[in-house]
């Protein structure tokens, strides 16, 4: 490396570039490995983070601190994308139910964590301190991390009432957490004597955080819509959108507004005011967000401090985790039962609300000012470890809930299916096979009676010797005098390429595209060229289209049942 480059890197904080690169690369590798065990990829990112951070020391705590602005940016992007999921229909369909379930699951977690942490703390301190600390823990745990929840829903292509309800809940429980936090911190401040503002003032401040953020996001959304209406260039759309998210984050930080709520408001307004035009904008941002997500979650893992625990801390962690899990599961069940949601939401929504992320830690850092330094560092450690554990079990819970609700794989596209299928899954085995010795008149009869565009020609051992296409048949229209003495072999076209059933569909379709053909004959693997079927582009498209439609219909039916 030249001195100049070293100088530039040092000047620009380039020392962070290598850890960032290794984190993104390593996180992606970790996700790939962990996906093989059918575990959500996000856990792979976090595990790699633990490996690179506390275990190997490659990502130092200093680097994590320097990357804090990146975390805020990632949260902003996540907020924007979660907002993009919140279409008007969800609120129209589930509005009342969302409000009730949100209140129940938030208060359930608040009560459960509050009681459990108070029970632990009472053994180590006076009741006042125990109450102050437990109220803060209780207030913080209500926030579900939208990033990991939505990431798992996207990874498993979930769609249906549970997915819709969950997206709405994770988008809104930040606001609930802020209100609970305001109350909790005020109460704690009164108890510990560090009170700087009264309850009314704290609530007013939360109101300002939330409503100000909503207003900022909404105003920015209308400006962005005005700009995006004037450009169709995807690169510019992406640049404008990322720019808008960054501006909102910066403004929200300057005016002490909630960053996630502000960018979420941007997403909500865009998706509801200009749904069609903005579809490509969200799709671009989703692609753009992939490495941002990876780095964000690797840093979640890297932030973990493995040393410095004592029995009180571990007991508090246990109380925090168990309380969060029990409170959210029980609370959402009761809320869903009270608001009469469908069974799938009632039974499984709770499992999907465990992930906790940076918001909890961020709120705790703010709250820790109300306590002395020793207590605040213990509280910070408890929340960091607790949120880490919940961040590991959370994605598993989301996957479990979505799977039990039958919503996994209902939001698939044709591209998703192509990635998972082999040729055997979609090949056409019903296409009539034409014997090489079949007379042309007979061939024309066969072709006339079916709607295939390609007919494999085989010899008496069923070995593929060619294929007859509709074009091939068309060529014989002007030579009908030959019909009686030509056989199928005479008009068969040689096959340009063939595949075996075990070949990945994506690979076979790539071959079809490269050769600019419409079909590929399928022959048995390792058995000469024995005919097995035909992979026709037309029938593959028809089949995949029908499957995607069926999945969408299934999801829509679930919606319909959820509403009636």
């Amino acid at each position, binding site marked *: 490396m030249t001195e100049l480059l070293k100088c530039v890197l040092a000047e620009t904080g380039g020392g962070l570039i290598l850890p960032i690169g290794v984190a993104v690369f390593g996180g992606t590798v970790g996700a790939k490995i962990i996906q093989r065990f059918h575990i959500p990829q996000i856990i792979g990112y976090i595990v790699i983070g633990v490996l690179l951070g506390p275990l190997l020391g490659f990502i130092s705590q200093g680097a994590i601190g320097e990357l804090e602005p990146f975390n805020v940016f990632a949260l902003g992007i996540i907020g924007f994308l979660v907002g993009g999921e919140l279409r008007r229909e969800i609120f129209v369909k589930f509005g009342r139910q969302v409000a009730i379930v949100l209140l129940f699951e938030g208060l359930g977690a608040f009560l459960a964590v509050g009681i459990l942490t108070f029970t632990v703390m009472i053994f180590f301190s006076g009741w006042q301190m125990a109450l102050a600390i437990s109220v803060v823990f209780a207030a913080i745990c209500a926030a579900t991390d939208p990033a990991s929840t939505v990431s798992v829903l996207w990874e498993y292509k979930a769609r249906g009432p549970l997915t819709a309800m969950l997206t709405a809940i994770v988008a809104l429980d930040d606001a609930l957490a802020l209100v609970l936090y305001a109350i909790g911190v005020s109460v704690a401040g009164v108890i510990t004597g560090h009170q700087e503002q009264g309850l009314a003032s704290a609530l007013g401040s939360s109101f300002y955080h939330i409503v100000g953020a909503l207003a900022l996001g909404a105003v920015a959304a209308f400006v962005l819509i005005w700009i995006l209406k004037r450009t169709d260039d995807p690169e510019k759309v992406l640049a404008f959108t990322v720019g808008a998210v960054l501006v909102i984050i910066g403004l929200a930080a300057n005016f002490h507004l909630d960053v996630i709520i502000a960018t979420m408001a941007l997403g909500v307004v865009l998706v509801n005011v200009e749904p069609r035009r903005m579809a490509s904008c969200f799709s671009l941002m989703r692609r753009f967000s992939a490495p941002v997500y990876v780095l964000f979650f690797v840093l979640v893992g890297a932030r973990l401090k493995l040393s410095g625990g004592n029995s009180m801390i571990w007991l508090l962690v246990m109380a925090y985790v168990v309380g969060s899990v029990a409170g959210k599961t029980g609370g959402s069940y009761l809320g869903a039962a009270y608001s009469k949601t469908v069974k799938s939401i009632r039974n499984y929504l709770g499992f999907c609300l465990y992930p906790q992320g940076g918001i909890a830690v961020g709120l705790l850092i703010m709250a820790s000012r109300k306590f002395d330094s020793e207590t605040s560092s213990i509280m910070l450690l408890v929340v960091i470890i607790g949120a880490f554990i919940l961040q590991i079990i959370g994605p598993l819970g989301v996957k479990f809930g979505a799977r039990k609700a039958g919503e996994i794989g209902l939001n698939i596209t044709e591209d998703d299916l192509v990635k998972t299928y082999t040729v055997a899954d979609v090949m056409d085995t019903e296409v009539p096979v034409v014997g090489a010795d079949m007379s042309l008149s007979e061939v024309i009869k066969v072709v006339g009676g079916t709607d295939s565009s390609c007919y494999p020609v085989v010899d008496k051992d069923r070995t593929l010797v060619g294929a007859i296409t509709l074009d091939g048949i068309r060529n014989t229209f002007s030579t009908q005098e030959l019909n*009686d*003495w030509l056989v199928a072999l*005479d008009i068969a076209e040689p096959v340009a390429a063939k595949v075996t059933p075990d070949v990945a569909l994506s690979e076979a379709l790539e071959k079809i595209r490269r050769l600019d053909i419409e079909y590929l004959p399928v022959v048995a693997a390792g058995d000469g060229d024995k005919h097995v079927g035909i992979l026709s582009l037309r029938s593959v498209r028809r089949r995949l289209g029908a499957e995607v439609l069926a999945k969408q219909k299934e999801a829509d039916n679930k919606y319909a049942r959820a509403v009636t």
Partner: protein
Amino acid sequence: MSSDVQLSRVLAPERVLVLHTTTKAEALRALADCLATAPEVGDREALCEGIFYREQLMSTGIGMGIAVPHVRLASVSGPVMAAGICRTPIADYESLDGVPVRLIFMIAAGKFQHVEHLRLLSSLSLRFKSEKLRDALIAAPDTLTFYHTLIRQED
């Protein structure tokens, strides 16, 4: 698809034979050997094998004393033809109408030349609807007369 094919492009005078064989197999072998001398044919064995395989599927004796054995092969670079006049009609050819074969036109084309191949077959088939031409070809005293009689039709 037009059936208009210039036979002079695919048939050379030296690839017209007078056959004195009495069986289908001998006649096909002799004509295949002759056709294999054309520069377009790269593999004599493959040509022979292809011709006999095709005959197994269905006889190429199309009736009226005419046979058109044909094949498409990867080792052939372009449409090419050889012709044989059977002085002794070949009775074992199993023609569609059962009439012994007097004239054989052996055709080979490239594996991917199915259109040209069909066009050539069609062109021959249309020509032989003329009884006058058939008789003239059968009665041709030598190969050169045969060749010119056939080619003249194009003019």
